[in-house]
């Protein structure tokens, strides 16, 4: 394959990228979290979609060409000279789910941010990762003016099985976000299939 040039003499200078997805409903703090832990200010990139790629939209009978722009926020952490981690915030609107597939391909896993005032906004993300057996952890983003719940209460309300870590945190806080990333990677390691 032309894009895989790992045998090139200069390939040693190119780090291996890894991805973690920051998911959750609209306003759950995805971009805040990317910004709090990224080593660069969050960047935004856009994908322009036309009807051909927007497979989820029913355009039957629509003559006009439809284009939409989906924005993706992301950040970066240089783990080592050999590894670089990218944090991608998911686009909030559910109609852009096919983009989640792109994001999820080859990813370590996801942190699903939950706002306790809008629990239902996180159902779709949880369902997405559960169905695909992609490792994920839940982080309750403890907003100042939101009611406080225990981990057990949140787990029960979201029907999260015991094997999935649930933590309370603050997406604005670097250490809190970092801890969630650490928990996710540990969880992903625990979910690896046993060697035969």
């Amino acid at each position, binding site marked *: *394959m*032309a*894009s*895989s*040039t*790992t045998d*090139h003499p*200069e*390939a040693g*200078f*190119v*780090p*291996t*990228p*890894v*991805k973690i997805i920051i998911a959750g409903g609209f306003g759950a703090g995805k971009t805040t979290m990317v910004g709090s832990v990224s080593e660069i200010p969050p*960047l*935004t*990139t*856009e*994908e*322009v979609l036309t009807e*051909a790629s927007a497979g989820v939209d029913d355009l039957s009978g629509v003559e006009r060409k439809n284009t939409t*722009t989906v924005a*993706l926020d*992301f950040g*970066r*952490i240089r*783990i*080592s000279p*050999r*590894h*670089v*981690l*990218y944090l*991608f915030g998911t686009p909030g609107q559910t109609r852009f789910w096919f983009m989640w597939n*792109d*994001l999820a*391909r*080859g*990813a*370590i*896993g996801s942190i699903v941010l939950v706002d306790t005032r809008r629990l239902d906004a996180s159902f779709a993300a949880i369902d997405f990762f559960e169905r695909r057996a*992609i*490792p994920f952890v839940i982080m309750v983003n403890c907003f100042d003016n939101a009611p406080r719940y225990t981990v057990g209460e949140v787990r029960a309300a979201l029907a999260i099985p015991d094997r999935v870590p649930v933590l309370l945190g603050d997406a604005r806080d670097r250490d809190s976000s*970092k801890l969630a*990333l*650490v928990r996710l*990677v*540990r969880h*992903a*390691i625990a979910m*690896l299939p046993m060697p035969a």
Partner: protein
Amino acid sequence: MSGDDGWYDESAGPLVRPYTITNGRTPTDDAQLDLSTQVMALRSELVPAGLGPEHVTVLHECLSPVSLAEIAAHMKLPLGVVRVLCGDLIEWGLVITRSPSDRPAEQPDLEILQAVLDGLINY
């Protein structure tokens, strides 16, 4: 009367349609370029003739390894356009790339996960 009296404004979008840059080509699946795929320009004495200005800009962006998403963000171009541009540069042997995995559907292995974990703890 001035030149900017209203037939065109920001909300109308860019005057050059994004895929004009790629001569109307859209990304093909066989390119396998992930958003996080690292792209690095190879040292080259001679920039081939016929390289478009956007190709040259991509080469300048990736003098040291950088992701496809960062190139797109810096150039303010849609990801799909940058995928096509990088695909050209790969074909012409001007850049090398490294994707998350040789098998794109697969999650990282234990060695990579352990390296990421160690790195995060010390971050």
